[in-house]
C-alpha cells in the first residue's frame, strides 16, 4: 500500500547543495472522518520521516494530521561523500517504509 519513491541526483560535486524529492502513497487517515455508515474511520497516519546520509540523520520531520494524503516532501542536503541515503517513514503502528538511493560525490 505504501509505495515510496525518492529522487536523488546520482552524482554531485563535494559540498554541492542537492535537492531531494520524496513521495509516498498513504491515505494519512486522520481519525476524524466517518464512513458512509457514520462510523469513525480509525486514525492511521505516517507520524515521522527521516533521511539518513550514510547513517547520519540530515532531515527529520514529525507529521500531524494536517499533512495531506500521499505526501510529497522535498528538501536539501549537502553532498558530503559518496554513499547511501536512506529514507524511512514510520506510521502510528510503528510500521516503517524504507527506501534508499546512492550518490557518487566527486
Amino acid at each position, binding site marked *: 500500500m505504501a509505495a515510496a519513491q525518492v529522487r536523488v541526483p546520482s552524482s554531485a560535486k563535494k559540498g554541492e*547543495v542537492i535537492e531531494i524529492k520524496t513521495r509516498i502513497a498513504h491515505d494519512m487517515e486522520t481519525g476524524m472522518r466517518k464512513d458512509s455508515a457514520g462510523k469513525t474511520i480509525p486514525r492511521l497516519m505516517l507520524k515521522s520521516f527521516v533521511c539518513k546520509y550514510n547513517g547520519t540523520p540530515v532531515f527529520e520531520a514529525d507529521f500531524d494530521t494536517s499533512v495531506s494524503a500521499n505526501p510529497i516532501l522535498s528538501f536539501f542536503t549537502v553532498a558530503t561523500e559518496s554513499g547511501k541515503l536512506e529514507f524511512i517513514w514510520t506510521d502510528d503502528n510503528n510500521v516503517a517504509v524504507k527506501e534508499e538511493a546512492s550518490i557518487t560525490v566527486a
Partner: protein
Amino acid sequence: MSSELKPSALTRREMLLASAALLAFAATGATPREAQATPAEVDAAVKKLTNNAAVKPGKVTLELPEIAENGASVPMTVKVESPMTDKDHVAAIHIFAEGNPRPVVLSVKIGPRAGKAEFAIRIRMAQTQNVLAVAVMSDGQAFSAKKEVKVTAGGC
C-alpha cells in the same frame, strides 16, 4: 437574491447550491465544533515548540497559494534565511494552521548538513485561515512568517 425564506419557493439553482454546501460539509467529516484549534492552543503549541522564545517576524518565507481550491492538498514551501554553518543554522521549523482541528501541521528538524533551510510539502486546510511558520535558530532565537490562504473546499 431574495431575502425572504420560503422553502417551497427555492429555485432549482438554489436547491443545487444548498445540496452542494451540505455535501461539502459532509465531506469534511467533522462537526464545526471539533473542526478548529483555538488561538490559545496555537499559542501554547508555539511556546512549547520554541521553548518559550520571543518569536519575531522575519527571516522566514512562506509560499502558499492565495486561494486553495482543494483544501485536501495545498502545496507549501518554507524558506529560512540562514548561513547554515555549524555555528549559525536553523535547527527546527514548525508549521501551524490556525483553522485546522489540530494546531501543529508538522515539525522539521534540520542542521548544517541541510545546506539550505528550505522544504516543500502538501498540507490539508479545513477552511480559510492563517498558516504560521516558526523557525528556531541554533542560538534559540525564533522567527516567523504568516500567510492567509482562502480555501474554497476544505479538506481535513
